[in-house]
């Protein structure tokens, strides 16, 4: 799924368009390990994966974030086996939710491209120093052809200055990286990661503004976008490419006189608690679309939202689009119709 990305990069490098090193690793586990080693040596690093590959990387995700290496990786979101299925849902990246990586979800190809550039600037910020996943829906975004504006190299270089690592492996200045953390120090490291996640929210907003100033495009405030939320009484909360469908559905329902809006969550980790409370003000009901399921519980986004929003907002969870199941405007209208129903979780298929 990420194959397209890697193949394209290979041809860019081999045609001399991109000045970069590519290491052909034998597995995703090793790919992320090599990215870790390269990043620790002091170079800007990228990898791409999806589904089973991300699951295979799982162990190393925590090592990269724990070592505070600003690796950026695109995830072409796909389901996890079994049964084996190559199509889109968010089960792969949601299963990596607690790995200490920032997660940004893109709605369109343009947003996917722009977010790659933005993600480096956020990840490498000295108040952040966290790795980032740019989540793009498998097929819907990874295999779609649509016109995008590719910014000039010069202009990207101006936005994203050359990488200056805070720490690196260098015989001139020996450092030990990845030590043993005993119970007397371990929580300090983990708490520092949590604080960095919290600082990231401000940095995300700032970088989003800077991107807008230079390239003329932005994505809400970089954290989330409220679509027709000003007077909305009901909202659909969603992430990724389905937001496009929800936009159309919202427009249609607005024409029918329904006060419906959309909360498009771009930044899922760090989870923007305050912003979500702000944007939900005045809402009576909410349909939360999850392209994932925490088996035995709800979808992950629903659980997260429940923890921060007032009980006064009636919230219903809809499990959608698993393994590439299509979601149409009609489905969105139906789920909005079900807001407030006693069945707080429903599978749409």
């Amino acid at each position, binding site marked *: 799924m990420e194959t397209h990305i890697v193949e394209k990069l290979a041809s860019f490098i081999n045609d001399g368009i991109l000045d970069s*090193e590519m290491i052909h690793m034998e597995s995703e586990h090793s790919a992320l390990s090599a990215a*870790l*080693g390269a990043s*620790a*040596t002091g170079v800007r690093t990228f990898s791409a994966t999806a589904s089973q590959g991300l699951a295979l990387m799982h162990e190393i995700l925590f090592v990269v974030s724990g070592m505070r290496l600003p690796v950026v990786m695109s995830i072409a979101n796909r389901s996890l086996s079994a049964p084996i299925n190559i199509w889109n849902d968010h089960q792969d990246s949601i299963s990596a939710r607690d790995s200490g990586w920032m997660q940004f979800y893109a709605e369109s190809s343009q947003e996917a491209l722009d977010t790659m550039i933005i993600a480096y600037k956020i990840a490498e910020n000295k108040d952040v120093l966290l790795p980032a996943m740019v989540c793009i829906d498998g097929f819907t975004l990874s295999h779609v052809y649509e016109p995008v504006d590719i910014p000039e190299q010069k202009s990207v270089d101006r936005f994203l200055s050359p990488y200056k690592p805070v720490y690196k492996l260098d015989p001139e200045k020996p450092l030990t*990286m990845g030590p043993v953390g005993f119970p007397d120090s371990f929580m300090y490291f983990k708490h520092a990661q949590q604080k960095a996640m919290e600082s990231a929210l401000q940095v995300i907003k700032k970088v989003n503004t800077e991107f807008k100033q230079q390239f003329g495009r932005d994505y809400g405030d970089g954290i989330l976008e409220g679509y027709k939320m000003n007077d909305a009484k009901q909202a659909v909360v969603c992430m990724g490419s389905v937001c496009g469908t929800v936009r159309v559905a919202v427009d249609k329902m607005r024409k029918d006189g329904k006060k419906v809006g959309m909360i498009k969550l771009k930044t899922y980790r760090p989870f923007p608690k305050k912003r979500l409370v702000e944007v939900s003000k005045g809402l009576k009901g909410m349909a939360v679309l999850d392209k994932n399921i925490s088996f035995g519980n709800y979808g992950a986004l629903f659980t997260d939202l429940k923890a921060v929003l007032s009980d006064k907002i009636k919230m219903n969870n809809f499990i959608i689009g698993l393994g590439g199941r299509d979601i149409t405007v009609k489905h969105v209208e139906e789920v909005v119709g079900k807001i407030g129903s006693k069945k707080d979780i429903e599978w749409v298929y």
Partner: protein
Amino acid sequence: MIPEEELFAKGHRACAGCGSALAMRHALKAAGKNTIISHATGCMEVVSSPYPETAWRVPWIHAAFENAAAVGSGIDRALKRQGKRENVNLLVIGGDGSTFDIGFQALSAAIERQQNFCYICYENNAYMNTGIQRSGATPKYASTTTSPAGKVVHGKMEWKKHMPLIVAAHNEGVYVATANIAFVQDYIDKVKKGLAKKGPAYIEVYCPCPPGWKISPSQTVEVAKVAFKSKVTPLYEIENGVLKFTKEPSSFVPVIEHLKTQGRFKHMTGEEVNEVQLHLDKNYEKLKKLEETCVRL
């Protein structure tokens, strides 16, 4: 000349008489200051890096158990990118668990890609860090915590994996050598040679482990010497695919002399000892034949 400078600092937390700690110390004497190390999880990682202390006077990184060769691959290419590759020695270090077993894939692929680093496997015959569990390097009949010598089953039931030949089989571009902590100069020469090669090198150094092998901490080097004399650790190198012995004992001793130095073999029957003897004789003969015929591996 072995340099006096200690780049693996004393005060680390290895057990008394640790053979692997000797392997670390002398690897760094061979490599010198201008070195970066990618280290797998294991005994030497744990004893050397309890935050905020470190025994490493060179840049050192540890990520996980099975990926030291993959992390090393990233460092290798990043150094190339920075134009520093020619000036820096890159060591990748793992124990036998992380080399023979869980990290085998990462090592194999790094050799296939011809990554430029010297891999050192400190081979102490089991997963010693987690409490002496059997590995692919544990010799047959050794009693470990997961292959205990019981009334019915007498320790580990399988032969040790022949890693150096497996590594050499990848391609002729890999330099392979076996070493033994009892023969420091031979070991240092091999590490230097491995580092000087522009490509992968694999050095497997035999390291007795007092708690794992049930030997006295004062006997580490002695036990390693007897192992050498009893054909347990033939010392050779494979360069451009051709095997050559670097050191041979003036006379061999029966393997019982090796086995009786260690508590982990004390349950063995005479028949089992004979079986091991036969196995070692055959193995030695095979290696000698490879040397004599100059067959390219």
